[in-house]
């Protein structure tokens, strides 16, 4: 009684086992009171299970550096003074030619990448920035990894996975400028990475919505003027290396950001037993004005 059908194909078995009725049942934990020394590993090896060799290695990423080397310190009052005043003119005439180290670095970069010019690069940097942020709004991981280095990626995307971000680049108020360049070499002498800092002043709108679609930060209609110092990096020796966004420099004199919409609780001061918390005379501690890197 072998019925062949067109749908299901099975090989014809050699024999079918006949089972007797199970008369009793012993749960597996019967004689375990005395035997604790035998470990499961020996038993598994005896049974024939092979475990793969465990590699205790930490993955090291060579495609990007871990930070910003010899960072650019933006002069205080940048973009606040008008071009016509004396100090404004002084700042405008502080061109990149002043710092010799940046010139050396640019020369080194031009050795490896022949198409590099400061004027074009600033425009390209702005394009990279805009595309990276568009990829962040769509959360396109592959595109984001190609536009942003591995050090910058977690900083950009931390906490954003279950949130909706709406970002729009309205216009650029000043043309972007290359202000700083460095060519550090890591570990061995010839392993060059190029880090170029670009200053850009632009108008952007940012609105972040949480998991339930409620507005957390910013607004979609109100654009804000933003002065940013972007650091773009490339692994120069690698012929397939690309210029990618590596981080941002936040100067110490930067104005405070807008607060988020919800109210937060700040941890209060540590009190000794018996002390009371004096709400009227308590000053909320403000963070120090230090330059930090995003």
């Amino acid at each position: 009684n072998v019925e062949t059908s067109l749908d299901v194909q099975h090989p014809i078995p050699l024999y079918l086992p006949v089972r007797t009725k199970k008369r009793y049942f012993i749960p597996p934990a019967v004689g375990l009171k005395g035997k604790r020394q035998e470990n499961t590993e020996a038993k598994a090896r005896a049974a024939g299970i092979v475990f793969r060799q465990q590699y205790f290695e930490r993955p090291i990423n060579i495609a990007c550096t871990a930070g910003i080397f010899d960072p650019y310190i933006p002069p205080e009052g940048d973009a606040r003074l008008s071009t016509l005043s004396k100090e404004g003119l002084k700042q405008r005439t502080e061109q990149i030619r002043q710092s010799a180290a940046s010139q050396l670095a640019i020369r080194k970069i031009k050795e490896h990448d022949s198409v590099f010019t400061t004027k074009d690069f600033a425009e390209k940097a702005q394009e990279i920035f805009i595309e990276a942020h568009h990829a962040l709004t769509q959360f396109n991981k592959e595109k984001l990894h190609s536009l942003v280095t591995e050090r910058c990626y977690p900083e950009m995307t931390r906490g954003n996975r279950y949130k909706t971000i709406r970002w729009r680049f309205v216009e650029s108020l000043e043309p972007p400028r290359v202000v700083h360049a460095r060519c550090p070499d890591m570990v061995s002498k010839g392993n060059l990475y190029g880090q170029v800092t670009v200053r850009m002043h632009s108008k952007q709108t940012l609105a972040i919505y949480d998991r339930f679609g409620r507005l957390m930060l910013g607004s979609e209609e109100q654009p804000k003027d933003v002065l940013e110092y972007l650091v773009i990096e490339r692994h120069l020796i690698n012929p397939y290396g690309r210029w990618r966004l590596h981080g941002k420099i936040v100067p110490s004199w930067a104005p405070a950001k807008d607060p988020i919409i919800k109210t937060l609780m700040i941890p209060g001061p540590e009190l000794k037993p018996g002390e009371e918390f004096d709400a009227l005379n308590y000053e909320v501690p403000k963070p120090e004005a230090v330059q930090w890197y995003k």
Partner: protein
Amino acid sequence: MAAAMTGRGISFIRSVPSVLLSRLQILGGGSQQLSCLHTSASLESKTWERRNLKVYPPQLPDEPRRPAEIHHSRRQIKYSKDKMWYLAKMIRGMSIDEAIAQLEFNDKKGAKIMKEVLLEAQEMAVKNHNVEYKSNLYVAESYSGKGKYLKRIRYHGRGMFGIMDKVYCHYFVKLMEGAPPKIEKKTNFDQAKEYVQSLKNRTIIHSL
């Protein structure tokens, strides 16, 4: 035939139940495709935790504000699911502060564990789910489920034995933002009035 215990033989034996099943299907109803696959929840599925990963699209400004929902659970608690049910039923619909207060002064073993779960859920809500006020939450759903039991032998007299289950349970809770919903309680007088009204509404239709 018994000596055919080669590798192929073992794979045949392993495929025998599926072969039998497919043959029964063939014998039963002609050409049955394997399209009636029934995927059930396996023992490892964490559906409740995955509900926290759902992202809603941004709301328009004229829509009412969507209340935040936080799902939290604890698995394999060493307690009975029936005993846990009493506590779960007690805190359904309470605000979170009230629920924590009631559980703190309850003498059951499950109450201490439930209180930890609620506090964890509250902290998660404030930190990760953008809930503004930690007291502005209430317990929308709370229930207990059966966990994976361990089986042991319970020795009886005369060489008889029974299988003893070491019981474990899961506890699931869903917190929502906002004030707890008020349940309208019907008084005795209202119920009596309704009954009398239903008696008065009786009519005889199609009569002479």
